[in-house]
Every structure is written in structure tokens, then in C-alpha cells.
């Protein structure tokens, strides 16, 4: 024995060569194992049990161990192990609970040597002693581990795991008598092979099953365990209490773990669900895999390093019925693809930025950022460790503090507060918003609003607020953006120029890309102006021959005009009582049910719609020839997308709301929803609840409007029988009595019901309002001083 172990270590690794290659198996593999000299690999699974020779260029099938016409379940392997001392000896663990040994030296076709059927349940793992030829250990679902002497017909000792299923057993590489066992309940036990009565030591390693464990090949005290809780942990067993020294968090449950030979800190893992890749981790760098093998198409079930002293070859078997040899040099290195820059905003708008040191220092020559931001470069140095094969990236962390006056989110907050999104005619909304943007020093945005107004308003409406507005605020920006169309390069220069003027950097950010957009859209813009020429606005170089355009537009504008209605935004803001989508159904249904609904109700119910209709009639467009609004939709759409991509989702949403139906159809629902949610999220973080609520209300996406309806269900119980009233609010299904009676008119309330939260009396909205105009006491006479606000 002594001699043999020396032979093993003496074997050089120089003889091994090969390339990344694979071969198709006939069936999914469950486990693989290599022979001592790394020239052959055995693959075992439910329907496969074969030996392949590893040749330079390919796998060659050497032997099929599944013989007989109808192979028994003994061939259905959960695990396989090739003896590391004796090259003819193999052991398999069968799903039916049998442990089988195979002797390749047998002359007959059937190589089966011994069959142990002592386990009652599936055997999950078999393990040969690393130095002892005849010693085999098995761990089974039935909660027992058994040690077999292959010279005898049955097990020599049984270790009980107290009816917890054993998932893995591993002999220690260095301690002759020790083995580790991992259990389904998350425990790991250490046993002395001579003492079957009690474990030496036990500790809880994972929550949920520990699927695998592996002793470090060199360091005697290290044990790696992997569990269903998606973690790989490395334990130092030399101390009194097992100490967790490393922990790697993977993305799926860990099915196998194998230390990499000759690399102290590396281990390979694979998963049994969802994730098909094999990862090699440096345990000191637990956040990103050191190397990844991505060849398999289904979960990897077995991994093994080809030779115990060669770190460059990894073999793997998989459920996708392939056997792979991976060359380490062909592995993908996630580190190379990882983004070494990090960026994060602090609570108060501070910005931390980490980047490669080289980048930062190169950058340092030019002025880092305009504005009064201070910068603290902080450098982190890790002591270089020669054994670490990670590329050394020392990054510099800079923190940019935003000064108080240019508080980062200021403009956003102000804009959010000041923007008008509804309640006025379209043109006025645009003008107002343009003004707001202008005052906040955002000319680009301001111009956009103005442009929108021009594009989508009909001239008749426009003429009132239009000219003076343009005169006082619109001219300059408009001139700017349009005059630039023939000198595209100059534009950028302009942007830079402005930046150097020391405007806040956010504006620059928006300005520059905005300009380039206009640049790219030059052609459309030309047409835009041409058409607006009709409405008395003349821009410097707007004189283009638009005759064709004109004629076309004259032909079809009539049709367009008819579809042109004002969107919802004209609803008065006060009306909180707007029915939610589910309510009208009830109401309508109920109305049909009860034809004797009083006139009052009908009125109350129609209150909101009526008002909005009147607004629409005011803004009914007068007939006048101009380009159909739809004509601009593609441009506006691009503009919105551009704004959103620039991070100014506020603008995108605001425009979306203000334009309403004019643009809505152009943008797919998902994008809209995405914008809305982003903006609402922003607003809520800034605690702008009112604005966010308004946005939710005005949005047309069903997914957004329903946000306001979460936990707004109001359960009403019948005042007579105390049962919840299920379908309608005023008549109880069970006692058939009218439950809610108006305190003023003593009739049943069937529409909007208002009641005092103090004394719980109430009635028809209109009645109560009228009542409280004249009296401050509760109409029911209970003496409560009710209030209607």
C-alpha cells in the first residue's frame, strides 16, 4: 500500500495533452469518474454505463458495461467511482439501493464482481478509500453509511445518520481514518472509520440538503460543501469548532463541488437545476467565477478533474447526453467581461464612481466635471498575491458631492411640481410647461414644449396665446435649433460653449443629445416649419418649397380633423370621486336592474362626464388648413424615446400625458407602462405623492391606473343583517332591505354615497352638500358637527 501511494504521486502530468472535445452518449449521464492514469473515463447513468478512452483528438468508446438483454436496475447508477489505486476496480451506486463493484480484469463480458444489497433506499454515493484497496464506503437515502471490505461478502460496519438521508460521503485525503458525510437536513458529520457507534463531530453547514462535499487535496483541514441553498462553503476542520472560512454564493443549488488540483484556492462547481454551466471559483473572490464552461445544454451532473495533479483538464457529463473534456485555456473568463466601473447615487444626490485607476489618471489631466463639484479620489490597494490569478485591477473611487444649491434632483422636483398636465386647453398647458422649463434653465425642454404646441395645436386656438408667447420666450431657442441644421458640427461646439459658461451639468447632458436629435431629424423639421408658416411664424430659413406637402394635406385634413378630440386631461382635478373602472360596471348593471332609479342618482353619476364635455366643446377646433397632427407623430415619438433614454423620463411622461390621444397610439403599451412606472417610482422616492397620484390618474395604461386601486376596496355591510353586501351597495341580498338611506331625503342612495366619518351619517352627495351649506349639524340630528370639504 505504501508503495502504491508513492506510485500515484510519482506520476507526472506531462504525459497529458488534448483539446476541448466532446462525444455524444446514448443517454443522460449521472456521474463520471476517471481512472488513475487519466487515460480513461467511466460514464454512468440510468441507461448508460460505458468506459471511454481519452485520446488526443476524441473520446473512443472502450467498453459497455451494461450487458444482458434486459439490464436490471443494478445498472441504473446514481454514482460511479474508479479506484485510484487499482485500475481495474470500479464501484457504482444503484438507484435501487445496490452497491456493485466491477472488475475490468474479468475475462467474461459481464464484469460485475460483487453486489451488496444492504441499503434499503437509493445509494447516493460510493467512495473508495484513497489509499486502501479493499475499502469502499457508501451513503444512502435510508440514512446509513456502510463500509465494505471487498474481500468479504457484506459490510464490515454501518454508520447511522439517524434516519437522515446521506447525500455524499468522502474519505479524507490525509487522515487515514476520517471521512465526512453530508446530509439532507443540512448537517455534515465527521466519522472515524473505526468507530461506527457515534460520529466524531457534527455541524450544520447549510439550510436544506448538503448535496456534496470535497476534501481539499493538499490542505488536510479544508472541506468544501455545496448545498441546495445555492452556497459553497469552505470549512476549516482543524479547529475545535468547524469554522467557515470562505463562502461562495452561486445562482443555483450546488450539485457537485471539486477542488482544482494544484491550485490551492480553486474549486469547480455545477448545479442540478436551471443552470447548465460549470464554474471554477477562486474562493477568495467569491463574487465572480474565475472561469466558466458553458458547453452543456442541460444540467451538468458530473464533474471531475482529469488528473489529480493537472489543473488544466476538466471532464464533465450532463443530462444532455454529452461527455465533455474542457481545456482550461478555452474557458470563458467572466472577469474579462465584467465591468470594472461602478456608479452609484447616494441619498442626497452624491455620486460615487469607481473606475480603473488608469482611466482616472488619464482623465485627470482634463477638467473632470464642470460645476462646483468636489471630488475625493480614494484608492484601494490590495496586497498583490502572486497565487491569485486574477487580473489586478486597482480602481479609484471618486465621490462627487453635489453642492447644496445645485442639488441634483432640484430641477426634477420643481418641474414635477410646476408642470401642468391637465385642466387647461392643450396649448396653454404647453406654454405653461415651456415657461416652467425656461425658468429652470432648461431651454431644450422649453423649446420642445413650444414645438409641441405648434405641431399639435390648431392655428385658430393658437392665435390667442401664441404670438406673444413665442415672442418673449420661444424665439431664441427656436432660432438656435433650426439655424443649426446646416452646420451640424457647429452644434456640438455650441453645446460645449454653453457648458463652459458654467450652467449646471444636468442641463448640458440634456442639451447635447437633444441637439443631435434635432440634427438627425432635420428633414422632418423642415417640413414642420413649412407647414407652420401658414400660421404666421417665420423662421430664418424656413422658406422651403412645400407645395407638395400642402396639396396633400389639404386633401386629407378634413378626415383628420374629425378624429381630433381632446383627451381626458380636461377633467377637473377636484373630482376625486371619479368612478374607478370596476365601479361603473356595477352601476350600469344596477341601473338596468332597477328602472326606478331616481333622477338624482343619474345626475350625480354623470357629474364628471358632463363637465368634461363642456370643456371639450370650448376647445373644439375651428376649421383651418394646416398639417395634420398625425404627421408629426413619428418625430414626436422619436423625441420621447430619446428623452426617456437620456434619463429624462419626466419629460417623456409629461408629454405623453399632455398630448394624450394624439401620440398614445404611436408608442407601444409596454414602453408607456415602463415610462410611467419609472417616473412614478422617481416621484414617490422624492415623496411627491400628489404629483405621482396625478400622473397615475392621468395615465391611460390600465396597468398604471390600477395602481391607485390597490387596497381601495371598501367593504360595506348591511345595516340590518350585518352581512357583507356583495353585489350592490344599497340593497342587501339576504334581507332584501335597503341599507343605505339618505339622511336628508330618506330615500335609498344608489349612486355616490357620502358619509361623515365622525358620526357615520350621510346620504346623497348633492343633498349633503346642500344641507351643509345651510347647516353645520348632521342632517340626521345626532348633533354631530359634520364637515364637508
Amino acid at each position, binding site marked *: 500500500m505504501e508503495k502504491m501511494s508513492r506510485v500515484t504521486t510519482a506520476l507526472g502530468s506531462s504525459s497529458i495533452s488534448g483539446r476541448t472535445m466532446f462525444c455524444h452518449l446514448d443517454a443522460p449521464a449521472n456521474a463520471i469518474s476517471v481512472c488513475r492514469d487519466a487515460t480513461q473515463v467511466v460514464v454512468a447513468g440510468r441507461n448508460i454505463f460505458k468506459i471511454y478512452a481519452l485520446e488526443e483528438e476524441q473520446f473512443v468508446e472502450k467498453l459497455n458495461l451494461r450487458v444482458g438483454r434486459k439490464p436490471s436496475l443494478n445498472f441504473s447508477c446514481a454514482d460511479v467511482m474508479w479506484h485510484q489505486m487499482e485500475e481495474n476496480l470500479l464501484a457504482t451506486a444503484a438507484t435501487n439501493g445496490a452497491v456493485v463493484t466491477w472488475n475490468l480484469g474479468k475475462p467474461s463480458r459481464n464484469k460485475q464482481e460483487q453486489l451488496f444489497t444492504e441499503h434499503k433506499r437509493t445509494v447516493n454515493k460510493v467512495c473508495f478509500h484513497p489509499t486502501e484497496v479493499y475499502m469502499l464506503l457508501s451513503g444512502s437515502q435510508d440514512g446509513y453509511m456502510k463500509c465494505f471490505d471487498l474481500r468479504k461478502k457484506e459490510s464490515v460496519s454501518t454508520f447511522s445518520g439517524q434516519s437522515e438521508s446521506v447525500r455524499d460521503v468522502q474519505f479524507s485525503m490525509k487522515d487515514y481514518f476520517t471521512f465526512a458525510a453530508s446530509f439532507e437536513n443540512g448537517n455534515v458529520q465527521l466519522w472515524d472509520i473505526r468507530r461506527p457507534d457515534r460520529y466524531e463531530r457534527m455541524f450544520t453547514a447549510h439550510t436544506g440538503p448538503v448535496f456534496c462535499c470535497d476534501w481539499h487535496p493538499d490542505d488536510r483541514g479544508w472541506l468544501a460543501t455545496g448545498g*441546495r441553498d445555492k452556497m459553497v462553503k469552505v470549512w476549516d476542520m482543524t479547529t475545535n469548532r468547524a469554522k467557515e472560512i470562505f463562502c461562495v454564493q452561486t445562482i443555483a443549488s450546488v*450539485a457537485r463541488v471539486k477542488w482544482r488540483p494544484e491550485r490551492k484556492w480553486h474549486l469547480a462547481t455545477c448545479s442540478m437545476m436551471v443552470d447548465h454551466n460549470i464554474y471554477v471559483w477562486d474562493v477568495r473572490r467569491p463574487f465572480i467565477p474565475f472561469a466558466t464552461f458553458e458547453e452543456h445544454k442541460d444540467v451538468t451532473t458530473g464533474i471531475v478533474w482529469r488528473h489529480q495533479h493537472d489543473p488544466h483538464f476538466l471532464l464533465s457529463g450532463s443530462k444532455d447526453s454529452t461527455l465533455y473534456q474542457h481545456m482550461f485555456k478555452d474557458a470563458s473568463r467572466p472577469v474579462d467581461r465584467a465591468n470594472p466601473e461602478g456608479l452609484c447615487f447616494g441619498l442626497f444626490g452624491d455620486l460615487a464612481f469607481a473606475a480603473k485607476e488608469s482611466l482616472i489618471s488619464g482623465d485627470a489631466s482634463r477638467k473632470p466635471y464642470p460645476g462646483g463639484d468636489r471630488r475625493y479620489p480614494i484608492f484601494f490597494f490590495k496586497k498583490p498575491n502572486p497565487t491569485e490569478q486574477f487580473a489586478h485591477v486597482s480602481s479609484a473611487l471618486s465621490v462627487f458631492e453635489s453642492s447644496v444649491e445645485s442639488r441634483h434632483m432640484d430641477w426634477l422636483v420643481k418641474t414635477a411640481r410646476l408642470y401642468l398636465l391637465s385642466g387647461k386647453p392643450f396649448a396653454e398647458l404647453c406654454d405653461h410647461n415651456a415657461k416652467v422649463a425656461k425658468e429652470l434653465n432648461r431651454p431644450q425642454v422649453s423649446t420642445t414644449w413650444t414645438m409641441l404646441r405648434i405641431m399639435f395645436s390648431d392655428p385658430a386656438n393658437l392665435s390667442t396665446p401664441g404670438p406673444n408667447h413665442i415672442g418673449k420666450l420661444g424665439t431664441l431657442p427656436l432660432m438656435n435649433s433650426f439655424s443649426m441644421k446646416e452646420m451640424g458640427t457647429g452644434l456640438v461646439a455650441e453645446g460645449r460653449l454653453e457648458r463652459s459658461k458654467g450652467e449646471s451639468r444636468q442641463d448640458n447632458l440634456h442639451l447635447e443629445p437633444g441637439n443631435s436629435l434635432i440634427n438627425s431629424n432635420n428633414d422632418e423639421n423642415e417640413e414642420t416649419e413649412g407647414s407652420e408658416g401658414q400660421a404666421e411664424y417665420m423662421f430664418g430659413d424656413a422658406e422651403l418649397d412645400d407645395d407638395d406637402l400642402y396639396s396633400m394635406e389639404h386633401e386629407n385634413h378634413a378626415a383628420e380633423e374629425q378624429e381630433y378630440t381632446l383627451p381626458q386631461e380636461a377633467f377637473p382635478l377636484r373630482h376625486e370621486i371619479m368612478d374607478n373602472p370596476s365601479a361603473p360596471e356595477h352601476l350600469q348593471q344596477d341601473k338596468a336592474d332597477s328602472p326606478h332609479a331616481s333622477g338624482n342618482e343619474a345626475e350625480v353619476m354623470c357629474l364628471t362626464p358632463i363637465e368634461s364635455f363642456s370643456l371639450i366643446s370650448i376647445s373644439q377646433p375651428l376649421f383651418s388648413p394646416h398639417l395634420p397632427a398625425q404627421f408629426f407623430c413619428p418625430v414626436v415619438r422619436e423625441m420621447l424615446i430619446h428623452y426617456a433614454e437620456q434619463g429624462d423620463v419626466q419629460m417623456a411622461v409629461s408629454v405623453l400625458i399632455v398630448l394624450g390621444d394624439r401620440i398614445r397610439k404611436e408608442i407601444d403599451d409596454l414602453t408607456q407602462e415602463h415610462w410611467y412606472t419609472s417616473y412614478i417610482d422617481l416621484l414617490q422616492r422624492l415623496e411627491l405623492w400628489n404629483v405621482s397620484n396625478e400622473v397615475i390618474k392621468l395615465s391611460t395604461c390600465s396597468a398604471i391606473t390600477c395602481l391607485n386601486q390597490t387596497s381601495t376596496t371598501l*367593504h360595506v355591510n348591511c345595516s340590518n343583517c350585518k352581512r357583507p353586501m356583495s353585489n350592490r351597495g344599497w340593497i342587501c341580498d339576504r334581507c332584501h332591505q335597503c341599507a343605505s338611506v339618505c339622511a336628508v331625503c330618506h330615500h335609498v342612495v344608489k349612486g355616490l354615497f357620502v358619509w361623515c366619518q365622525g358620526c357615520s351619517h350621510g346620504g346623497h352627495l348633492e343633498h349633503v352638500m346642500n344641507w351643509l351649506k345651510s347647516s353645520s349639524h348632521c342632517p340626521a340630528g345626532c348633533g354631530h358637527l359634520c364637515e364637508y370639504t
Partner: protein
Amino acid sequence: MDIHDQDATARWEELGSRDPSSREAAMEHISQEVMRRVEGIVPIPAAVPSPPAAACPPASDLNDILARLLMLSKRCPFDDVRERCIWLLRNVQDLGIRIPRPLGNGPSRFIPEKEIQVSKVDPRTQSIFEDAFAALGRLDNISLVMGFHPQYLENFLKTQHYLLQMDGPLSLHYRHYIGIMAAARHQCSYLVNLHVNDFVQVGGDPKWLNGLEGAPKKLQALGELNKILAHRPWLLTKAHIENLLKAEEHSWSLAELIHAVVLLTHYHSLASFTFGCGITPEIHSDGGHTFRPPSLSQYCVCDIANGNGHGNHPEEKLGNHQEVSGEVEVLMERMKQLQECRDEEEASQEEMATRFEREKTESMLVATAEDDECVPSRDVSRHFEDPYGYKDFSRRGEHVPTFRVQDYSWEDHGYSLVNRLYPDVGQLLDDKFQMAYNLTYNTMATHKDVDTSMLRRAIWNYIHCMFGIRYDDYDYGEINQLLDRSFKVYIKTMVCSPEKTTKRMYESFWRQFQHSEKVHVNLLLMEARMQAELLYALRAITRYMT
């Protein structure tokens, strides 16, 4: 308008409070309310009792209150509330008002009421009951019956609460609707009624309840999955999953689908339990109580429906008792033998393989039902469109490969998938399965210190066997040794077509065993069935994902 309207609801809820004084206050309030109403109806107390007046519509709300009081007097885990309710009911009765009485005997038709009483439970069960009562305002009959096994009940309620109320990808009314869909597959009117109320209360559209056509397209698409999963889960393929996930605007997300699948399987198996234990309608719901005075004959409606009157066949029972007195002992003897003789008679591999096949085919020969009578009180049939029942696994020539549990097990694969897409639920289900599988008191009927693991495993594997799930490491010959025919009939009926379970079936297996043990068996059946369905569903989803 009634001042007490909002108040009253709160009062009922406050009865669930753990604080005795607030319970008392609430109770006081309720009794005042009741008396007020009673006086409204019967102006002259203790006058000539006028039954027709009490039954007329204006009193119906009072009747509802009385029914509720009756429920509380029987089901409330707090004895002070129970006593007050009884007292109050008696007072009302003394005033000449007809009070309701419960129909049926206790929470289960199969188990005598005296076995399940809220008043006589150990402290642990008591505290679980109190929690459940506080959370839901009721203690349903299912929980009461499960109260035999408090450890399990705790797990069960926790899981159910998480599935229905806590964070999850599906909205609340969807969850209840899926529950209704699943229960309706087995015509389980008890569960359907329970969830119809919940569904409406969380704001579900009552129109959906008219049938699956009334529900959104998205839920309609789930109908197919529901059907297959309930009756022939082995036919589930990744194509089904794909159809659900790629249906354009009606498509499901993976997380939603997992949630739905867990709900479906939960309610399919719960339907099995409901029928298997003969759960009766809740006292305060329709069909749970009556205002009619007890008739002379002691039959109650449900007994008549199933032909199980009291004392219906006393002599037959007696005769049987003689015959089966040794049943338990025989069973224990067999278990012992199996344990000892394991090594001696080593069956060949082929033998083992054929045993599974034999058990599988044999399970098909077990007739499922003795009579096809079932009386769904609510028209549940409208929730599913076509008749589609359990079809035996390998009959009709369609060959479906055996599901090998070693290749796709709950512990290794199912758990990870569920937990990935619906966090925490994997763990909850895992705990529940383990609890059901490992639950034992080491007793069998009157015998103590018995290792029942073998029996439990036989039951579990037999159920999985009916679904075509095979354990490589199990000798299916054991099943034949341990489970006798009447027990197999019961299992098969309960798992495959639970609506056909009858009291006779329940009584004819394991006659000497205690009711709590039979409930234990029911728990095993329920969880094994749920796991079997889940395994098929999750495997299909995994196949879709890879």
C-alpha cells in the same frame, strides 16, 4: 341608517381577539344587538310562540346572526365566547324565537362529533386554533379535523395563508378563483363555497362565477392545465406550458404559472381530503344549519344522500367486528416479517420491475366507487365544461413512460425550481411534505411503540404508483402485503375521484384504527397526491426552460 353598522362588523372581528376583556365587550355588544332585534320581532316577550313570524323575511337577518352565534357556540376556540353564545341562544329561544340547530354531526360526516371538539384540545392545538380564528374570523371544518395533528395543521395553515394572502405574483381574486377552479374539478362544493365568498370579498367579479367563459382569457387558458393536472398529470408536456407562456397578451409569466400550479395542486389535493374525511358544510353557511325542529327519525340529509343512516346496519357492524378483530395484529405481524425477512428472500431484479408494473395495473382493477351518488349543493359543474376524469395510468394502449423519481425528485429538483420562481414557497411546501411523511406517534390502533415508517412509505408510494411515479429503491411487493383491498379502494377513490368517497368506504378500511389515524392517512394521501401532481407540472416547466 344604522349607527351600528360599521361597528357590528368590528364586534364580530373582535371576538377573535386574544384579550378576554375585549372579547367580552364585543360579546356584550352583540347580545344587546340581538336582544334589540328580538324585541323588535316579539313585542311581548314570552307571549304565545309564533313560529311563522320568526320564519318570515324581516327576521332573516336575525336568523343570520343566530346562525353565526350557533357557529360560534360550536366552533369558537375561546370557551368564554362559546358559553356566552349558548347562553344567548337559549335566552332567545326562551323568548319564543326559533333558534337554528346544526345539520349533520360535527365537522365531519365520518367522524363522531365527540371526537372533534373545540373545547377538548391540548394547549398547542388551542393556540393554533386561536390564531386561525383571529386571522380568518372562522375556524373551518378542515382545520378542526386536522386538529388531530397540530404539528401538521400549523404547517398547513401557514402555507395556505402564504399562498392566498401574502406576497405573490397573482392578485388575490385570481388566487381564489384558481382555488375555485381546482375544487370544482372534483365537484367539491365545500371548498367552492368557501372560496366563492372569499373571492367576492376581495373584489372579484361575480360574473366570473357563472363559469370559466365569464373569466378572463388568461384564466380560461389555465383550464386545460387544471383538467390534466387533476386527472391525468402524466400527460402534461412542455407544449402545454409553452401554450400558457406564449399566448401574447393573455400569456402567463413563469412566476405566475408556478403560483397557479401550486394553488391548483393544493386545492385538488385538499378536495381529496375534504371528501376523504367527509367534511360537512360550515354551520353558518347554507346547508349547515336548519331552523326546523329535529324530526323524529334521526337521519340527516347528507346521511340519506349516501345511504348511511345511524344504526343503519348494526348487526352487520357487529359481525364485521368479530371478523376483523385481528386486523391490526395481522398488519403488524406482516410489517415485522417484511422487516426481518428482507435479506432472506431476495427478489430478482426482473421480479422487482414486474412488481411495480403489477401494482400499477392492479391499482387499475381496484374499482373506484360503490355508488355514483353525489349531491353538489351549489351548481359547481358550471366551472368546468367537459367531463374528463382520472383515466388509469397505462390503460387504453397509450404508453406513457414511467416517471422515475430518481431523475426528478421534489427534494433535488422541484424545490429549487419553485423556490427560484416563487420565493419561500419551496421551503413551505418542503416542510409540509416532510411533516406529512414523517409524522408518527409510534402507535397503531391500541398498540404503542410501533415503527410505522414502512406503512407510511407503502401508502405514499402506492399513491405515486397510481400516477406512474416509480421509486427504484422500493419493492412494490410490500404494498400488497400491507394494504388490503378495502384500503386500496379507499385510497384510489380518494385520490382519483374523491367525489365518490362514501362513508361506507371510510368505515370499511382499518376498522380498529382510531379516527385520528384515519385522518393521518388522509393527510398522507393528500400530500402524496399534491407532490405527484407538482412533480409532473414542474418537470414539464423544467423541460420547457431547458
